[in-house]
């Protein structure tokens, strides 16, 4: 048996819990059935019970499987053992959440028993909700590992928000989502919604588990390349493109639409990575040394995750622009998809370089907080303030005209990027000089 799974089972499983949980679930089901003999109430309660126990309790347990280690100073024991990141990850995901799974499966049993639906529908629903539960557990584990990486000892707020958001969305809509008759269009193909959702959730859950394994590798100081990060970006981009509904439009051929979606996906991923794993001076030093030593594999391992997806976003932005017809590359049309995507990528690059700059210069507080404040000033406060003091013509210098004049926006954002890059490089060289002047303490 996986030692990590075994250890978690030692901690989680007790005879008391094994007896109490089904007793509570079946008692609640019997109570509801007594008031509503149609079985609909029990059916809803069971599904809600499954989602709450697995998504709330299970996610909390998955995160605590790492955070508790940090709190009780046992994380070093785990880091010193020879288990692979994969075994460590699935041992935690399955072991720490064992009792929530037990409770959830009791609920699922009641759901299937009270539903009266056909077998196929039951299997599809079961696959869907199991996948959603695994997805939330893996996201929580990633969040905890990010929190650990940042030395906060807290779960990442982003992962928490994602899990809560998913729960808030699912709980009121769950019975509608599992409607066996509902259909949807994906790449212009009509598909039954429930099996599609089940397959999609399973795939996203698999990606989340892979992500958790990668995050675990990083915390175990095992070098990882950003290939999975980019592969997920492509997967998510293709998945979302299927819903765009613009593929048949002659002005937006599928390939161009895909490139634009990949650009947007990469931008979103870059922001997530940038604020989850902010690049620090030491990491940049390592990357610089690896490049200087012409050790490109090591350089890829050392590069901040955000920089890789940011580069991908820029490439996709350029590609989207290049794939466009010549008349589109003007400032006249709203559907200048390529230049807009490129401008968006440049804006993301500026913001994340600004974050890196504050990471190198700020001694107190969080660089993320300061970066958000300055991004707010640049993109919100100044464009709102300037017209009030009669300087409307300066507004585009801070909030570029993305849609009305995307080419102008690209020029302005390139200047922004150049200025922030200059500041970041200067801060980097200063820190480097400081280290060279005072070796040791």
């Amino acid at each position, binding site marked *: 048996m996986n*030692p*990590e799974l*075994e*250890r978690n089972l*030692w*901690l989680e499983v007790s005879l008391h819990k094994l007896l109490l949980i089904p007793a509570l679930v079946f008692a609640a089901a019997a109570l509801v059935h007594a008031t509503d003999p149609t079985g609909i109430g029990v059916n809803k309660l069971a599904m809600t019970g499954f989602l709450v126990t697995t998504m709330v309790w299970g996610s909390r347990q998955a995160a605590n499987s790492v955070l508790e280690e940090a709190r*009780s*100073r*046992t*994380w*070093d*024991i*785990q*880091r*010193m*053992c*020879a*288990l*692979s990141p994969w075994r460590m990850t699935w041992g935690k995901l399955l072991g720490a959440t064992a009792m929530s799974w037990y409770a959830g499966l009791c609920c699922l049993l009641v759901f299937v028993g009270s539903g009266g639906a056909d077998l196929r529908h039951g299997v599809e629903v079961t696959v869907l909700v199991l996948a959603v539960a695994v997805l939330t557990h893996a996201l929580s584990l990633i969040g905890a590992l990010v929190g650990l990486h940042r030395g906060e000892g807290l779960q990442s707020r982003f992962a928490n928000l994602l899990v809560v958001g998913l729960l808030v969305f699912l709980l009121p809509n769950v019975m509608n989502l599992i409607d066996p008759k509902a259909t949807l269009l994906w790449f212009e193909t009509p598909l039954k919604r429930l099996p599609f959702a089940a397959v999609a959730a399973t795939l996203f859950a698999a990606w989340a588990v892979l992500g958790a394994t990668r995050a675990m590798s990083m915390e*175990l*100081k*095992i*070098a990882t390349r950003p290939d999975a990060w980019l592969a997920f970006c492509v997967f998510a981009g293709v998945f979302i493109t299927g819903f765009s509904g613009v593929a048949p439009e002659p002005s937006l051929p599928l390939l161009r639409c895909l490139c634009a979606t990949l650009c947007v996906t990469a931008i979103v991923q870059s922001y997530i990575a940038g604020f989850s794993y902010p690049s*620090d*001076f*030491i990491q940049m*030093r*390592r990357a610089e*040394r690896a490049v200087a030593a012409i050790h490109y594999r090591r350089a890829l391992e050392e590069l901040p995750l955000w920089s890789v997806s940011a580069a991908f976003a820029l490439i996709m932005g350029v590609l989207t622009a290049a794939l466009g017809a010549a008349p589109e590359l003007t400032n006249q049309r709203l559907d200048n998809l390529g230049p807009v995507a490129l401008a968006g990528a440049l804006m993301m690059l500026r913001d994340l370089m600004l974050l890196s700059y504050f990471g*190198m210069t700020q001694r107190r507080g969080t660089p993320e907080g300061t970066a958000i404040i300055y991004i707010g000033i640049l993109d919100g406060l100044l464009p709102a303030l300037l017209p009030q003091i009669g300087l409307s013509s300066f507004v585009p210098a801070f909030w570029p005209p993305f849609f009305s004049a995307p080419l102008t926006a690209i020029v302005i954002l390139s200047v922004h990027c150049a200025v922030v890059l200059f500041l970041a490089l200067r801060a980097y060289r200063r*820190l480097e000089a*400081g*280290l060279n002047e*005072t*070796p*040791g*303490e």
Partner: protein
Amino acid sequence: MIEVRGLSYEYPGLRALADVSFDIARGTITALVGPNGAGKTTLLRCLAGMERPLSGSIRVNDIDVIEEPRRSHRHVGYLSDFFGLYDKLTVRQCLRYVGAANGLAADALAATVADTAAELGIHERLDQRTGELSRGLRQRVAIAQAIIHGPTVVLLDEPASGLDPEARYALGELFLTLRRRGMTLLVSSHILAELEAYSTHMLILRGGQLVEHRALAQSLETTTHMEVRSLDGAASLGAALAREALVTELAVDGDTVRFTFKGDEQQRAALLHALLTTGLRVSHFAAVAEDLQQSYINSITRGQAR
């Protein structure tokens, strides 16, 4: 056994290790000493594959620790300064987990747990939860966890902190036992007198730089700390000793002259003869055993002078 080359580690705004290189031979116990913030813990964590250095290489048992940290963990045991234990698990469960997680075969696990517990004197506590144990017993469980998989290298960061004198003595005895079993130990501690009891080598770090790394016993054979007194006064005695090539670090302390003599017994006899030949009435001529504390102070002083 341990090969470190050009190891540098940086924290933001601080170079914790600067181009550190050394080799540690199999079956030795090396005392890792240095002032607070010298980089001792960072060095141990890098050796254990728990931190990725800025540059340099670390090999343990010919395994590249930076490239393959998890593989190296089968050969390395590490006890952190601020270690924790799974308080809700029993000692047996803790040891089983660490043993299995480090690749011990399932059929050998029970016997290995029993043997390790017996070696550490915690065999009667195997079914007790670690959260119920005293500080000393918890320390033993932590050490048992570090060595249960039979590592060839054991890294210990302040292993005796918080232990009473009796437990410290037992710990020293345990280290000597582990050494006899062929393990290589690197022990960081502030309590130099305690390290003296079992260390064969000393590695001194200061400001992230390696000040000195040498064998303690071997050096004592060729380097002696001497103190000499003469009825003719310390000044004339000091002047005579200053002319001797093998005399270094000369210091006058009242009527006593202390110095380091780099020579064997024959050369020491020749020095005494030379002093008597000059007509000095030598009343005291003795080799003073160098303790680790003094050795450390001397090394640090030399390092500062350089």
